[in-house]
């Protein structure tokens, strides 16, 4: 039973968070929206002014735009498939009775705590380097030609690195969900003669569905804005082969100083994120009602 006094105090306690987040979200976004309709070059202040939608037209007609959208989606979808499928398999394996489960869990979760630039540099130089990397050592051991990952398959290389970073997260969440599955239900299904596959399909998978949804949604938010991994490995190249939308916007803004176009790209990124966010909010909101 909240009194009037309690209620106004509650509002007062909430105010700092709400105001800070509101300002933090709205002010820069309005700036970006404003710049997206302006011609603005910090190196050449003579040519400023309102240019309507031409920044959007320019950004859209840039061949890099199509590449960046395709690459963004390829990264998101590939990493999701690898981490969700791999995460389910791994979670089921770790759910078995094994010796040293605590240590195994620690080993599996570790990559998630590695900061993105370290993960990318370690993979680039220690693992995938065409001369000194472990993959090259393995290839030479079998008498094969080492693969030049970042020259020939830059996007695949980035996807592998990002998948390595996120597989632990998916595994941990799916394992947590799996461990809450009622053991008696499993036994009952087993006694009724349900085989491994049908047990998986009709019991385990439906039980994990909520966790899988959460994994997909949360990863999508982060995967849409992959940046550091590309910066320290391929720098978006060769050409635009591994440029995603965030990286393209960064290039336009801070390397080419085409602020108008970069802002137009930023607005497009916001729209893309909002489409995803719409579905994410609905799913999280449903869980909140329980």
């Amino acid at each position, binding site marked *: 039973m909240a009194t009037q006094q309690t209620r106004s105090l509650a509002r007062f306690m*909430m105010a700092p968070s709400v105001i800070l987040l509101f300002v933090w979200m709205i002010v820069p976004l309005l700036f970006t929206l404003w710049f997206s309709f302006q011609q603005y070059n910090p190196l050449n202040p003579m040519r400023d002014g309102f240019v309507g939608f031409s920044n959007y037209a320019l950004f859209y007609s840039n061949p890099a735009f199509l590449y960046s959208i395709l690459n963004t989606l390829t990264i998101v979808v590939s990493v999701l498939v690898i981490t969700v499928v791999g995460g389910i398999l791994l979670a089921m394996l770790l759910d078995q009775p*094994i010796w040293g489960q605590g240590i195994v869990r620690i080993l599996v979760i570790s990559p998630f705590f590695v900061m993105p630039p370290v993960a990318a540099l370690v993979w680039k130089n220690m693992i995938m380097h065409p001369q000194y990397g472990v993959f090259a050592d393995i290839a030479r051991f079998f008498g094969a030609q080492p693969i030049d990952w970042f020259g020939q398959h830059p996007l695949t290389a980035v996807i592998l690195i990002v998948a390595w970073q996120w597989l632990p997260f998916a595994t941990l969440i799916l394992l947590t969900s799996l461990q809450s599955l009622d053991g008696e239900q499993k036994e009952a299904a087993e006694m009724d003669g349900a085989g491994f596959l049908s047990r998986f399909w009709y019991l385990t998978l439906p039980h994990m569905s909520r966790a899988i949804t959460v994994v997909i949604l949360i990863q999508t938010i982060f995967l849409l804005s992959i940046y550091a991994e590309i910066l320290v490995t391929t720098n978006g190249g060769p050409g635009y082969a591994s440029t995603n939308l965030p990286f393209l916007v960064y290039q336009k803004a801070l390397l080419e100083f085409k602020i108008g176009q970069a802002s137009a790209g930023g607005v497009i990124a916001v729209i893309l994120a909002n489409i995803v966010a719409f579905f994410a909010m609905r799913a999280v909101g449903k869980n909140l009602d329980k």
Partner: protein
Amino acid sequence: MARAVTTQHKTIATAAAWVVALLIFFPILYTIITSFKSEQEAIQGFNLIPSGTFESYSEVQQQSGYFKFFFNSVLLSVGSTILALIVAIPAAWSMAFSPTKRTKDILMWMLSTKMMPAVAVLFPIYLIFRDSGLLDSRIGLTVMLMLINLPIVVWMLYTYFREIPGEILEAARMDGASLWNEIIYVLTPMAVPGIASTMLLNIILAWNEAFWTIRLTTTNAAPLTAFISSFSSPQGLFWAKLSAASTLAIAPILIMGWFSQKQLVRGLTFGAVK
């Protein structure tokens, strides 16, 4: 009737799990091993036994001053987390114990700010930072990281606070405790574990934040993310040094992370998976 686990089944599962776990951990393990090699050793092909030299570590410290970056990382991640807690605790408290019709909408809206792509506001933020002299300043970046993680902090605290039984608060109120007394003497002791978990996870998130920390710093406020990124253009033999620097950058947070597995699941799924 408990299902009997055969030793054979357990042996096979154990072997499979260990192989997969070691494969996943391998890049980290190999980096640690290589950090104890000399530069010559590091490029002589696959080798799991280092000579055990510390020369890369001392070179990393001498050449690039590792400890300055480390200090910045600690300051930024701990500072921003404490700031976020100060702002978020009252908000989460009021939402958990005096919910209104709009509480859910406010929580949702807070979460939605987290989904705004950082790159969309890169230039405005850059301008604001430059014009107010906050570029490459520790204060500016601390506030930035605080704002980035604030929604998660509020959410995590909210899910923890909601589990504290409201009857206890009512009892305290009946006994005439004022609101502030209620918070300090009743709520806080019960909320400490949740606050500690929230703090732990957010230090990890802030430590590993690799967009703003790279873009808004140059030397003075640069944390380990920026320090490591400077290794992206190699000069000469640098495998052992890179490994030493990487090991130093991830070791503190890796150990913290091992202790926070449970909170990680809860915090990053906003309480949806426990």
